[in-house]
Each structure stands twice: as structure tokens, then as C-alpha cells.
């Protein structure tokens, strides 16, 4: 909840986006499949289903999905694993407005190509 509130606030400051939230990895995959978002911000440490599994399933649903992974898990192997699974960006927590806005700049640049 706290992490989602922070990120939602930063996104709303950036621009006018419809934001869909999920409380865990399983919900995240379900929401992705139902709503086909332009961008996804995905935590790694989540209950029910972790971010690695959720990312794998999201990319299986849409291999072009643009996913930015947010995580407190700064282990090099975690970052490598996330990139292997197809995440576009890895953002290390704590999340800041600057990090989220920078990520949105990059995600937008990909979409507008």
C-alpha cells in the first residue's frame, strides 16, 4: 500500500494517466491480462506471487510488455534475473519522484518510436 501510494503520487505529478493497482503478483498478472496497460511498474517482493513469477507470466502474455521492476532487492543476481525475464528497467528502492519520472521518460520514448 505504502509503495503503491508513493508511485501513484509520482505518476500523477508526471501526467494524466489511468492507474490500475494490484496488491500482489497474482492480481498484477490478472490486471495486466484484463487491461493491457501501456506501462507496468512491478515490485519484486510481493505476497501470493513474487515479482519474478509475475514478470515471467506478463511477458508470456505479451512479449512486448514494457515493465519497470521496482525492488529493494539490489543483489546483482536479482537484477540479472529481472533483465533475463524481459524487464525494460530496474529501479532500486527507495523510490523517488526523480526515479519514477526518469523511468516514465524512457518508457514513453519506447512507445513513441
Amino acid at each position, binding site marked *: *500500500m*505504502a*509503495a503503491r*501510494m*508513493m508511485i501513484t*503520487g509520482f505518476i500523477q505529478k508526471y501526467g494524466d494517466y489511468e492507474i490500475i493497482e494490484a496488491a500482489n503478483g497474482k492480481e498484477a498478472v490478472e490486471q495486466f491480462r484484463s487491461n493491457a496497460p501501456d506501462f507496468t511498474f512491478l515490485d*519484486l*517482493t*510481493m*505476497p501470493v506471487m513474487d515479482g519474478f513469477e509475475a514478470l515471467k507470466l506478463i511477458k508470456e502474455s505479451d512479449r512486448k510488455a514494457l515493465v519497470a521492476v521496482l*525492488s*529493494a*532487492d*539490489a*543483489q*546483482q*543476481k*536479482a537484477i540479472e534475473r529481472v533483465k533475463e525475464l524481459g524487464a525494460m528497467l530496474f529501479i532500486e*528502492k*527507495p*523510490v*523517488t*519522484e*526523480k526515479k519514477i519520472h526518469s523511468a516514465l521518460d524512457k518508457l514513453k520514448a519506447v512507445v513513441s518510436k
Partner: protein
Amino acid sequence: MKQEIFTPLEIDTLQETLNIAFGAASAELAEVIDIFIALDTPRLNVSTVGQLESYILDQINLPANYAIVEQHFSGGVTGVTLLIFPEGAGLELLSYFNKSESGIPLTIPLENIDKEALMEIGNILIGACMSKLYELLDINIKFYPPRITVTRDFKQFFDEEFFEETHYAITLKTNFKFEDNDVTGHLFIITNDESSSSFKEGLNKFWESINER
């Protein structure tokens, strides 16, 4: 009283700060030994002091004895951190250490190598996690030297004067697993309700700092 100690947002934010702190600690340990640590979602629990031991036992669900690295702390928040492994886990993890760098001489008795390996891991995980956690919350803490004990008795870690029956115990906990060899560990940071005001102040500072960056 128990229900009012923290709001849902405060609980979630404290859990998130432990998530960040333990993530940083895991990364630090992974630089020392070539290992991947699978992290779990941290949880905050408020219980009576009388319920504390059974709460911990319910969470860890390990057989036989436990190897516990304990470190007490005081200052803005006072309490104890427990890093709990199954007995013998140190021997499982020993292979990750480069013997010449770790300072664990192979000449010491086998039963002590187990404890030495866990102390090395505990020093890094607890030290890095606690430092990061209280940095995020801007709380000044003094740490006491860690110790390791093999036991099933948790009561010995709770100072009777600090953990009185009239107090509530506030526990932040997270689980983790060393993936390659399936060793599971548990971290518990335990204080009492007298620490709640320091936590609340720290959370306000945390939110302010996030919004300022």
C-alpha cells in the same frame, strides 16, 4: 491499545522500510559470498509480551534447535534483533566462504565452524539491515556486540525489565532463503510499544524525504 499503536499506512510503511533495509543487506552479503538470497514480504506484528514467544515459534516452524544470532540495540528505539537459522545451517553455508578471506580457520573444531559461519553472515545481515532501517527512519541507535546461541528457548533474549507483561511487543520480521542450498532464515526485530512514538516520527521523516527527492 494494541489496535491503536499504528495505523494501516504506518504498518505498511514500516514493512516497506524493512523491505528496503533487508534488500540492501542481502546485496551486501551477496558481494561477500557468491550467493542469491530469495526475499520474502516483511510483516509487522503487535502482540502482548506473553504471546511473543509463541508468535515467533509459529512463524519459524523449524524442528529441533535453532542457531540464533542476537544483537541488542538502544537509543531512539530499544530492543533486540534475532537472526534465526536451523541448527547446523552454518555447515551448509560454509562452502560459500573463501576460507582465506572469511577469517574462518579450518583448524577450529567442527561444531564451532557452524557458529562461526553464521556469525559472519549474521554480522553482515543484521548490521547492514539495522543500519539501513534506522537511516531511513532517521533514528539514532547504539548497537551492542552480537552473540550466537543454539537453543529453543527464546525467553532468554527478552530483557524482563524492558519486556514487561504490561507492555506490548512490536515485531518486524522477514524470511529469506539461500536459494542454492535451500537454507531458510528468519529475521526478527523486536521492540516494545514505548518505541512507537520514535517509529512514528521516523515514518514522517521517511515520507518527507521521499517527497523531497
